[in-house]
């Protein structure tokens, strides 16, 4: 039910992001979704990729600091209140969303949103109990 996200430490300077996309492109790794969080000095690039191991090993070899983060890809109905219902059920159980970002591709009629929870396993249990569809990692990477 979980998915692997590649997190990359980047300095805030021109051309750094392009460096990552170039390396992944040459390794023939497809970027499925991304989010970038930054401060004035540094940023963290978060990626869902078609081949996690390959992307990680290649970037590591090029000297980047990378990490594996466990995230959950949740199908969210593409209509008003769709996201709110999900956030509401999690909030009632005291689950905290560290960050989230949208997946480019839809799954059927549903949008796909990547969540980083503070308590991943409990979050998954709650979503399952409420019949919220979760996209498993291998499906997600090739959606």
């Amino acid at each position, binding site marked *: 039910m979980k998915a692997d*996200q590649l*997190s990359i*430490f*980047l*300095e805030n300077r021109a051309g750094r992001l392009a460096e990552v996309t170039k390396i992944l492109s040459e390794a023939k790794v497809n970027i499925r979704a991304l989010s970038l*969080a*930054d*401060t004035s*000095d*540094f940023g*963290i690039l*978060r990626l869902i990729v078609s081949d996690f191991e390959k992307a990680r090993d290649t970037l590591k070899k090029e*000297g*980047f*600091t*990378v*990490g594996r*983060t466990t995230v959950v890809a949740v199908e969210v109905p593409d209509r008003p209140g769709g996201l709110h219902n999900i956030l509401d059920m999690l909030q009632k159980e005291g689950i905290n969303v*560290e*960050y989230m970002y949208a997946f480019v591709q839809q799954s059927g009629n549903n949008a796909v949103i990547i969540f*980083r929870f503070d308590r991943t396993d409990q979050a998954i249990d709650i979503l399952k109990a409420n019949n919220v569809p979760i996209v498993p990692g291998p499906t997600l990477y090739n959606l």
Partner: protein
Amino acid sequence: MIFDPEMETRPREDLEALQTKRLKALVERVYANVPFYRKKFDELGIKPNDLRGLENLKDLPFTEKQDLRNNYPFGMFAVSKENIVRIHSSSGTTGKATVVGYTRRDVKNWGRCMARALGMAGVTSQDLIHNAYGYGLFTGGLGVHYGAEELGAAVIPVSGGGTKRQVMLLKDFGATVICCTPSYSLFLAETAKDMGIDFRELPLRVGVFGAEPWSESMRKDIESKLGLMALDIYGLSEVMGPGVAMECHTAQNGLHIMEDHFLAEIINPETGEQLPPGEVGELVITTLTKEAIPLVRYRTRDLTSLNTTPCRCGRTLARMNRIMGRSDDMLIIRGVNVFPSQIESILVETEGLSPHYQLIIKRKGALDSLEIEVEVDEPIFSDKIKNLQLLETKVQKNIKEFLGVTAKCKLVEPKTLERSVGKAKRIVDLRKL
């Protein structure tokens, strides 16, 4: 004004005779009372009686800052605790600071040396001294304070910080002399300008500046912005504090060393060989009169040269030139001594940060800023911004707590820091002094 004409204008032969007598007594004292020196002398096969004159000084062993650290806190003291009346200490991580003690006579001598120094700056009992050196463990504040009182001048113990208030006090009290670090003097002038006060219109006429390296161009800058005569003072806590040497206002060319208390040599920092007057090398000081913590041939790591020619002011005391640099990697940031190794140990103690770091020192306006760039490796990396920011804050807090200096910590990618032949370049000093 010459505060102590007998000592300050003594013919050099007489001075050397006095130094010889005091050096002999010192060597006997340390051999009898400080196990560290007894061991060193024994290892070299030197007996106190072997010393005939100043020409034998070169045979005596050196003392290093590390020796003081190894004997932390009181291992180098030559007197029992009941004779100590004061303790000072330099910055350092726990257990690594250098601690110095003073007997009643040491404090008295220090005050007299500092009074002489103020006299060299043309300060008299008529003056009002604004003392913005830090009061506390740092020797600057109290050192100047006792000297001012010894001289009979009035002293305002402002200490450091509260810059706007300082400007207000300078204006309201009308101090005629200011003592602080040279960079702080410029910061004061800038702050005053922002407050609509022109420093040049204040009654200040002399500045006694020290505790950090500065230059002739900085002197000109200070003199024009502050409208006073800027003079250089030298001292270090290990041998006493401020007042070891001071520039006279008459010649404004070199700092007179209080040679009846401090025997100065210049050595080649690589070989340890003595160098003749005029040649640049490392200043080595032997404390001739210190009772609590006498030091034989203490290596200051400060680079300068000596000038024994007579001075226009009438003093016979030799002059040392402005400090030109260091023979080790010590940095002086806003008057605080910082060794890269101290920063390294703080980084390692902070959540096991990698020892790959670089120190960038800049001078923004008048004040030094220290930036520590630390490489982010996998063990400390997080996908959450707040975790990384917390790490930066922790480093800054620990640096402030242990070293007493404000620094900015910046996380950088691995291997972005300049490495020369596999060895990282640790220090980038962008200050133009």
